[in-house]
């Protein structure tokens, strides 16, 4: 039944000859040479574990979240309202740093020194906090300096997901998942480090567990706020972690 394959014409007739193989192999070698440097655009899950980049400002989560007990959501307020937890705008920093320009110790030391030298204490600005003022182009009196340009702060993103993953902070935060569950003990970290591999298996295992035994395995299937009326918990209040693909991939 099979009709004979028409004899290839043009360049195709040379297919299969050793010469062509040689040409192809050479081309392969050359293309690999060009391609290899670009390969780092692809990464396998887990590669980023322990990623701890230096930030433009040496902001310490240990100090702010640990020692000073600033709530996570005070700065990352987007976590409740948006997909992104967000990095605070500089004006959020200024809520405190309008008044706090240096560690207390440094200010006290300057006060004492001034007393000793019998002069007015000078304003002490820590070099890291100075960077916020520079970004906002503020002068000594904390007023915007029109002569200077404001420059946005280019933080380095620590927790990155591939472009085809749509993670949303809202349902997690609103269901009562603690920030540390995914981000680790941030309140102890001087510089933020990625402590979980953020792979799909890691996500899905947690989602499955939540459905079986409630959040944190404590049998708590309801998210706050609990309904006032007695009776079965309505569906909308149940903690339910979907494992549908389209929950994250679309």
């Amino acid at each position, binding site marked *: 039944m099979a009709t004979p394959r028409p004899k290839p014409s043009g360049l195709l007739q040379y297919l299969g000859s050793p010469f062509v193989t040689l040409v192809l192999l050479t081309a392969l070698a050359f293309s690999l040479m060009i391609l290899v440097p670009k390969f780092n655009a692809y990464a396998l899950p887990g590669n980023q574990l322990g990623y701890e980049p230096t930030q433009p400002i040496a902001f310490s989560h240990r100090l702010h979240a640990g020692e000073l007990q600033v709530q996570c959501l005070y700065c990352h307020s987007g976590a409740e309202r948006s997909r992104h937890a967000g990095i605070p705008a500089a004006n959020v920093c200024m809520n405190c740093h309008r008044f706090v320009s240096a560690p207390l110790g440094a200010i006290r030391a300057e006060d004492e020194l001034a007393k000793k030298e019998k002069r007015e204490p000078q304003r002490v600005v820590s070099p890291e906090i100075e960077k916020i003022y520079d970004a906002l182009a503020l002068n000594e009196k904390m007023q915007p300096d029109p002569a200077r340009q404001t420059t946005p702060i280019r*933080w380095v993103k620590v927790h990155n997901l591939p472009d085809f993953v749509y993670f949303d902070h809202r349902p997690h935060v609103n269901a009562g998942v603690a920030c540390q569950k995914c981000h680790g003990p941030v309140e102890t970290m001087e510089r933020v480090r990625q402590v979980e591999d953020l792979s799909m298996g890691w996500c899905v295992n947690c989602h499955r567990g939540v459905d079986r035994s409630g959040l944190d395995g404590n049998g708590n299937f309801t998210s706050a706020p609990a309904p006032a009326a007695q009776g079965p918990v309505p569906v909308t209040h149940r903690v339910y972690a979907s494992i549908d693909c389209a929950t994250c991939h679309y």
Partner: protein
Amino acid sequence: MSKRRTKRYWKSLKERDASPDVLKARADEFPERGPRQFRRRDFLKATGFTLGVAFATGCSRAPVQRAIPLLSQPEEVVPGRSLFYASTCAGCSAGCGLLAKVRDGRPIKLEGNPQHPVSHGGLCATGQASILGLYDSQRLRHPLKEGKKSSWAEVDREIQAELANIRSDRGAVRFLSGTITSPTTRAAIEEFLKGFPDARHVVYDPLSNSALLDAHEQTHGLRVLPRFHFDKAEVIVSLDADFLGTWISPVEYTADYRAGRDLEAKRISYHVQFEPRMTVTGSKADRRFVVAPGEMGLLLTHLALRIARKAAAPLTPGAPEAVSVDSAFLDELADRLWHARGRSLIVCGANDLQQQFLSNYLNHLLGNYGPTLDLKQPSLQAQGSDKELGGLLAELQYGKVKALFIHGVNPAFDFSFAQRVDETAVLARYVLPEQHYLESWNDAEPVSGLVSVSQPTIHPLGDARSLVETIAAWNGKPKPAYDLLREHWEAEVFPRQKKESNFDAFWDRAVHDGFAEVEPLPIKSKQFNAQAIRPILKAQRPEPGAFALALYPTVAMLDGRNAYNPWLHELPDPITKVTWDNYASISPAAAQRLGVADGDVVRLESGDQMLDLPAFIQPGQHDQVVAVALGYGSKLSARFAKVGPQWLDAIVSVGDKGVVGLNAAPLLRWSEGVLQYHGAQVKVSRTGRQRELASTQTHNTLTVPRKLTPPGSGPRPVVQETTLAAYLKDPHAGVEDHEEKEDLWPTDHPYTGPRWGMVIDQNACTGCSSCVVACQVENNIPVVGRDEIRRNREMHWLRIDRYYSEAESGQIEVAYEPLMCQQCENAPCETVCPVLATVHSEDGLNQQVYNRCIGTRYCANNCPYKARRFNWFNYAHDDQLQNLVLNPDVAVRSRGVMEKCTFCVQRIQEAKIEAKRRGEKVPDGEVETACQQSCPAQAIYFGDLNDPNSQVSKMMANPRRYRVLEELNVRPAVGYLTIVRNRPPEGREKSKEEHHG
């Protein structure tokens, strides 16, 4: 069971007349072109290489990504959340209300404003696509002087100096623009021109309705465009007015027309269309007659004589020639019109004074002025005057005009202030960039008494300036547009209402809503004056062998203003389904006479003008008419020389002249002081050359396996329709073939939560294709270019299948069937995927997981609806500015991945998460898909099928509901409602009636 006769539906003439071979081939999604050249060994080699690459990539860190927060974040801005700003569309002068979806400081999608009294929540394809104009990297960024970069300070100084000279020399100053509906801008121009002894503002519309306004000047003493109320008309007679497609304000008219044809409310108007070529409006008509343009006036006379006789009104009878439309039908139509006095409407699309007189006369005799044609609150959407333009052209010829300002129009193309350098701009000494409407303050008064607001939604890109600001600068009072607008509103608009006493509150309300309703401008029309009306007794017929020309705008290109927009070039025309070209459309009989087939280049000659265009054979067109689309061949489309993937075998998207299509405007002619789009006599001849058109009309054809044909009849048609008479007797009419089959896997999908579903009312759908563009914008669908479309590789997730069929009268009928992924319960695609990249979700979605897909294309092969699209290439996303329009909530797919309609799952997710945050179920109507949101006819319903009270559940239970290819029992989540034509029963319905009777 008696043998039933089923109506046949076909997508192209070839399919209608085809041999079994062609019918077999149409079932293939990608017809074969030449021998296969990719062999098994080559495949293995490629696989080996890919594996090698994969191993080599395994061990490295991802590139550093930055997160740059705002320095000072306004309270309402939350990164990742969208804000909606009410504004007004400036895609044409219809002034539809829109909501701009702004994400992180940039608009990414335009939605219709449901509260807007003009558009009622719809937005057309042009409006949807206009957002791309904002991110056009070829938009003018700075003023040009003699083609070179200049600055505003420099051009302002020089222009002001020259204007001072002209003023002292008493030279003539002319300001030429299209219809400007903005009251603030109009007032500014008026004030500016007042400073000169000889100055005039000339308004012209490239798609002119001048005669319609001129006719009212003579019959009613007022040069106005009445506001048409298609919702209040029970009988609509349209003489070549494409009011659902391109005529004046199509979104407004579509919404009204739809309201007047609501089967659920038991209201259905009767619509008769007379036209020379198939239009969107004609395709929806209950009765459609093919009438040559030269015969239209004669037809109006015949109708007018009949109505005048009934009204006992004098109309010099004379002896009109016979007309091709059946006179018994005209008698019946006249009876119907007379019966529906004050509830009927006659619209005439011809730019011809005599015809418009007759149309006014008919509406007057029928008492339609007032109820269905509003003169007290007229429409301001078209104000152009061809007479004025003619006067200006004459003045220019004599060199009388010293300064000519051109705003927003492109007269050098149709026979500046500009956003792009077009044909007119290259001729101008100064070219001043105007801001896009999404980056500036503006207003519009599309209908007298309805003032709509435009507000900026992004920080301006480039150094452009809005027209009011420029004029204010020349008037010596430079001010930001916001201040100018507020000043004008406080002085002129605010006093026109009494509800609000505080201007700030009034202004804030208007900016929030996007519009304000105020008292209409006072006008007084005179008694109807029948003086000018002369019956037209003779038809103008082309010589035997010659053709009458019909120049028309398409839904996508309009007059050519959208020629820069790749989305609109790629949008298949609602009727012909051709993309990326214009063509000479001729009837099948004419094609046979000339001996041409689709794609044969023909030469059109009219006077000294000549145009070589590929032929397209169009059913339902007059045999002596050749129709050509305007708006093509613009310089703005030269940029598409390299659109689409550039690979070895690629063919450029542009024509020989380096632009898309050819400009047909040179074939326009002046007659009695108005522009004539119709009727010019042309000679058509073959050239022997070929240009294959990229038409999608036969792509993705649905076929029914023979073994599933119901016994004793032909195959069950994929479109189901009925007539009003049959529907009133039995609402199930037309869907008799409907049968619920047993589910083979009843427990597979329990759907315990919501189950998403959709219902599409085919009776409401006009085929306008707004949904196609809306889907493209929302879901980051790439543009593939003409060559790829030729290869059946268009990427639109939502397509509108257009079927022809023949009524008993021989009239060609059109049925539109918007088709996207049907989200089947027993989805054939899911069972064949070897890597589980397409699986069912618990809420009824057929999920496509891009990152899991390896591109076997088995799913597409197994999809009976042919709704899946494959990424054959990494489609271009090189234009950084244009990438700003990408929806950040939808992944940009890469090569080798299958994709398809997701029911806008990103919107579902957003609604679910937000509902959960509020602690409630997703309310009905909270999730609106992109296609549904923008539909001017509100033909699409979407929601939870498990909620018995949701709108979509109610529509699913509608007796008109059927499913496409129901016999396959794949249980799709999309339902369709039958088309109901307002007519006596036909075909098998009639035979059934006789049987019962």
